[in-house]
């Protein structure tokens, strides 16, 4: 079944590779994955949809949380959250279907972002299932190409971000010595 994970990640080199690497290493199938900076430029937010057995869900989260650059991994599958995705569809359609295509786009709350004699480019956002239906409908009118963004999610209840404090090293920062020769 599909599991929706929201991840806060330190914006460090290789951090993304660690997450995707972990997913393939543990045999979890990625349905979609999006990543971008948060309001804090040091931190990125990832939304990951994976296909895993229900019994494995907790394990996925625990493994994510073990990654040192992961600040917080939350399973939002069963929590109050809004999931949205964007799709861009380019459709070639015959002159006589143009009006019908525009009508359908409107029903799905779509926006025409390009129009030509050949057809349209249409943008729709919505929950991922809805977008699937939209793509199916468009297909019935002509030749299409579709690019989906992958799901993004936001939890409807805030979860406190618990960060760890600095720890002293054995270097003993205060005293400065000449290097040992």
């Amino acid at each position: 079944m599909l599991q929706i994970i929201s991840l806060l990640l330190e914006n460090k080199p290789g951090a993304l590779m660690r997450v995707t690497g972990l997913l393939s290493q543990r045999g979890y199938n990625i349905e979609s994955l999006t990543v971008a900076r948060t309001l804090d430029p040091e931190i990125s937010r990832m939304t990951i949809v994976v296909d895993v057995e229900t019994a494995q869900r907790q394990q996925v989260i625990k493994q994510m949380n073990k990654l040192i650059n992961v600040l917080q991994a939350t399973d939002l599958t069963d929590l109050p959250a809004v999931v949205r995705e964007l799709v861009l569809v380019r459709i070639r359609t015959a002159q006589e279907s143009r009006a019908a295509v525009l009508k359908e786009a409107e029903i799905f709350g779509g926006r025409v972002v390009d129009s030509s004699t050949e057809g349209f480019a249409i943008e729709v956002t919505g929950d991922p299932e809805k977008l699937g239906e939209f793509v199916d409908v468009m297909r019935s009118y002509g030749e299409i190409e579709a690019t989906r963004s992958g799901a993004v999610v936001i939890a409807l209840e805030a979860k406190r971000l618990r960060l760890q404090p600095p720890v002293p090293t054995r270097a003993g920062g205060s005293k400065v010595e000449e290097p040992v020769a």
Partner: protein
Amino acid sequence: MSTLMSGARMLVECLAREGVDCMFGYPGGVTLPFYDVLYDHQIRHILVRHEENAAFAAEGYARATGRVGVCCATSGPGATNLTTGLVDAMMDSIPIVAITGQVSTKLIGSDAFQEADTFGITRPCTKHNYLVKKLDDLGQAIHEAFYVAASGRPGPVLVDITKDVLQGQGHYQPVASVHLPGYKVFTEGHTGQIRRAAQLIQESARPLVYSGGGIIAAGATRELREFVELAGTPAVNTLMGLGGLPSSHPNFISLPGMHGSYAANMAMTNADLLIALGVRFDDRVTGRLAAFAPHAKVIHVDIDPAEIGKNRAPEVPIVGDVKRVLAKLNKLLSEAPPTDEKLSAARRAWWRQIRQWKEEHPLEVVKSDTEIKPQHLMGEIDRISGGDAIVSSDVGQHQMWAAQLIRFNEPRLWLNSGGLGSMGFGLPAAIGAQFAHPEKLVFAVVGDGGFQMSIPELATVASYGLPIKIVVMNNGYLGMVRQWQTLFYNNRLSAVELDCFPDAEKLAGAYGFKGRTIDKPWELAPALEEAVREPGPYLLNVKVSPLESVYPMVPAGGAINEMVLGPPQPVAAK
């Protein structure tokens, strides 16, 4: 206030401040600046003969001491050669830090000479890794590496450093603290769960401690001993956990799992409460998971939350440092009222049952008049060690017999590649251990196959005059694979015969130390004693009966109480 110095010197300064006294490595083009600083530095650099063995030696050092082991290699092939050792340390949770050189920052991505994506390659081989491209990040990365390697569930950390960073000049400022906001180390353990655990322990009629490498990593052997005595429980120690409880302790049963003892596996199967301490329910221990400890409730203590519930869902999960958790449990148990008569009677029956299993099928030192049995060899090493020597094992049949038959009075004496099962581990790990404990008797117990993977390190042994006693259990086969072919592939022995083995006396002689081959049972004790008396290294090649198989054995996919107890006809256990 700060001092101007090169990146290479800064690196060495950081290592010194982390308390590094020796490290194992192999130089190359991009690490030249680093080696130039080491030239007259107090940190001792041990030149191994292959980078894989630098990692294994660092592991041996770490396994024998609990301190972070350090290895280093140059870019490209040097770094890729380290990977087996890194994965080995990952699987067994051993704290090591690997330093690798990388081509200059401006050359990265150009397929430069000896460029490899070390950062990418070692991501899944390490607990965490770094690529340092700016001198300002160097100190931070090194100290973070040591902190991550040693804290929480220990593991390997690699720091890849570009040549321009090593060559650059900068102001050195000691790094006072490291900040890893997303790195949580769990220590205390949930008080409520610990109380529930104590309750279950007091109510259990057939409790069993199943303890592993976590006890050793946590330095919790004293607490474990106190626990089994207070709780009155028998205990099994996994392959990684041997020495967690002294082998001579009356509550100690032995090793469970694929080649575990009959008593250990029967106890696991019949217990009503499993107290799992620093273990991960590895498939080599549990056998068929669905049939594992079917009657038991499980208390699982581990510092890694991801281990809890990974393979077996426990009734009482406790995330924490097993040393602290045990200390709290011990306090609760020592304050608890004595158990009632009915339960005490059930506990006595449980102990009687365990003693009976032990007597029915003990792990025995088999001997013959004409040939040296592998078990005889391990029995003699045990006699000479008396539970006090370091035994660094390679991988195969000899490893299983050694684990079954050699006793360990203390932790950190038994060194072996448990999770990864890397052949070629035994000798380099012994080298690391001997550097850590120059005064201790160190045996490298290896097979004729694995020994030939680490022959280059005879040069390291000789050049540093390490008094390691290398004992080759020579059965002329890749014995463990041969055993499986015999049992499960109609004895069609395919690519397992080792029909060429060097003359041990000449081989050791070529390196300037003593060696000898024996094949008669009466030669065994005197030859081992001679090896131990010899002040320097010794290579003892012991020809043993070639076709002996390790028993008990749980066939792959079987339940652990369905052991094959010995040849020729498999006898199913009750």
